[in-house]
């Protein structure tokens, strides 16, 4: 049993935001069939959004490029999906929310509260939505204000998901901590782009988007490593984790648990596979507790 910001998780793998999280039924499936220790919903905002035109996600040799554009039905319509996930998933359900200001974040959190999410994850890191996500998440003052605004009205844990598209992620991490965050989640996608050379058109409907998957793992490991040093609160590692080895590496950098996103492309039960792999690794190495792994790399100078 893993405890993270007071939540009890059966295993240290969590479904990342924006992946298979549009419906309650799908979140339940990831928990049951996939074996995730907790699930994070699609990011939900104050008004319905259809997102960017397609193509919104393409697979590259080194990872995935996406620009979904925060499509979501808004909090009043998502409420019933959250209730389904809470009722039937059997794991902690974290509501990912976004807004353009502290007031909007507050409005969405307040709207979803009665469905009893186990925690909130504040999306201040989506790299391709004008006025939202990284547009607010690269400003430390705004990150602190948003975190404080949500903390002010909820009693469940608040996680803040950080963008790596800044010169110093620890500065944003510190702001989240100062605002009262219970944990930070690092990282969201890295800005990226692909161009179709036959036509010259950028491939994504939004022209550019965010890179996830294998290619971003070293970036995520470095961000987690730095945040672990800079912050008191736990760091949740995400970015290119697709195997138990990746998860162990992320934990040695300082991640308390990991989130898994794009890797569901290969197999839905990637969560079970990773958590079983971690258990076997702990046994083989003679660790009595996963805590012995977390931040281990910092001691190896």
């Amino acid at each position, binding site marked *: 049993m893993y405890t993270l910001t007071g939540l009890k998780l059966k295993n240290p793998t969590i479904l990342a935001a924006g992946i298979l999280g549009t419906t309650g039924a799908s979140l339940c*499936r990831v928990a049951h069939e996939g074996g995730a220790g907790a699930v994070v919903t699609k990011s939900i905002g104050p008004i319905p959004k259809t997102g960017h035109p397609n193509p919104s996600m393409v697979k590259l040799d080194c990872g995935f490029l996406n620009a979904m554009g925060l499509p979501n*039905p808004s909090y009043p319509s998502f409420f019933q999906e959250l209730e389904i996930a809470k009722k039937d998933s059997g794991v902690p359900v974290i509501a990912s929310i976004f807004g353009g200001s502290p007031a909007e974040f507050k409005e969405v959190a307040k709207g979803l509260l009665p469905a009893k999410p186990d925690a909130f994850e504040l999306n201040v890191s989506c790299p391709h939505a004008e006025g939202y996500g990284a547009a607010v998440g690269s400003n430390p003052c705004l990150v602190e204000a948003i975190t404080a605004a949500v903390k002010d009205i909820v009693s469940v844990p608040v996680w803040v998901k950080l963008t790596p598209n800044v010169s110093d992620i620890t500065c944003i991490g510190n702001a989240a901590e100062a605002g009262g965050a219970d944990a930070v989640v690092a990282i969201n996608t890295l800005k990226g782009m692909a161009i179709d050379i036959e*036509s010259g058109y950028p491939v994504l409907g939004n022209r550019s988007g965010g890179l996830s998957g294998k290619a971003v793992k070293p970036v995520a490991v470095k961000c987690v490593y730095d945040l672990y040093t800079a912050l008191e609160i736990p760091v949740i590692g995400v970015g290119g984790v697709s195997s138990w080895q990746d998860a162990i590496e992320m934990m040695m950098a300082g991640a308390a648990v990991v989130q898994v996103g794009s890797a569901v492309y290969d197999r839905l039960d990637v969560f079970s596979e990773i958590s079983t792999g971690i258990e076997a690794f702990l046994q083989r190495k003679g660790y009595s507790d996963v805590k012995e792994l977390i931040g281990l790399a910092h001691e190896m100078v």
Partner: protein
Amino acid sequence: MLPLNATIVQINEESPAVRTFFFDFQFETMKPGQFVMVWVRGVDEVPMGLSSKNSITVQKVGEATSKLFELKEGDSFGLRGPFGNGFSLPSEGEKTLVIAGGVGAAPLAPYAEAARSVGSEVHTVLGARSAGDLLFEKRFAEAGEVYISTDDGSKGTKGFVTDVLNSLNLSVYDRIAVCGPEIMISSVFRLLKERQVLEKSEFSLQRYFKCGIGVCGACCIDKSGLRVCRDGPVFSGVQLLDSELGKYARDASGRRVKI
């Protein structure tokens, strides 16, 4: 995969609102029922069932398809795929019933042909609004017997495909493949359930696709949480029991919309 560049080599006018676009390469591994993401550059990317290894058959319904209809031979679009699961093929000697409504005939024409080529006896119930809207009648006829229904009675039985199905003995078929508008397939679903032949059936479903590759979850159906783009678009009738089929779907924002 990045989209392949597909050059249009031929355009067939199937009906006033439906055209088949043949392109310059073949999806050799295509299974009937699989789809491709068609990228009309600068506009949108939409899923389309393959009507053969090198063609898509498109109904003009929205912005992307309207733009597609402006393209001429020699023009190109982007293509990714083939994606998803197709219809399962019968074995030699098995009897196959194909139920196609409107542009739903597109992925079923290659299925009827493939079923015939492995030695299955193929019967098709082909429905459309009127005689001029019937798709691939010749292809289905070459694969086996065809029963026609039109809403206005301009050809075949006046009414819906279910009116034809009512007069057929469904227990003789080993496989039943269904594709068409959701209103139609949900009535067929109910009928097959009543006649206790659901376990032999497969349905192709349409939902709003965002990523198209099984990651985002925009097309997940209730209550199973199955992804239409990846776990479908073809589902067995049994998988759709107690599902949202015929009741509601989700729009691009994820909101439930009544069918």
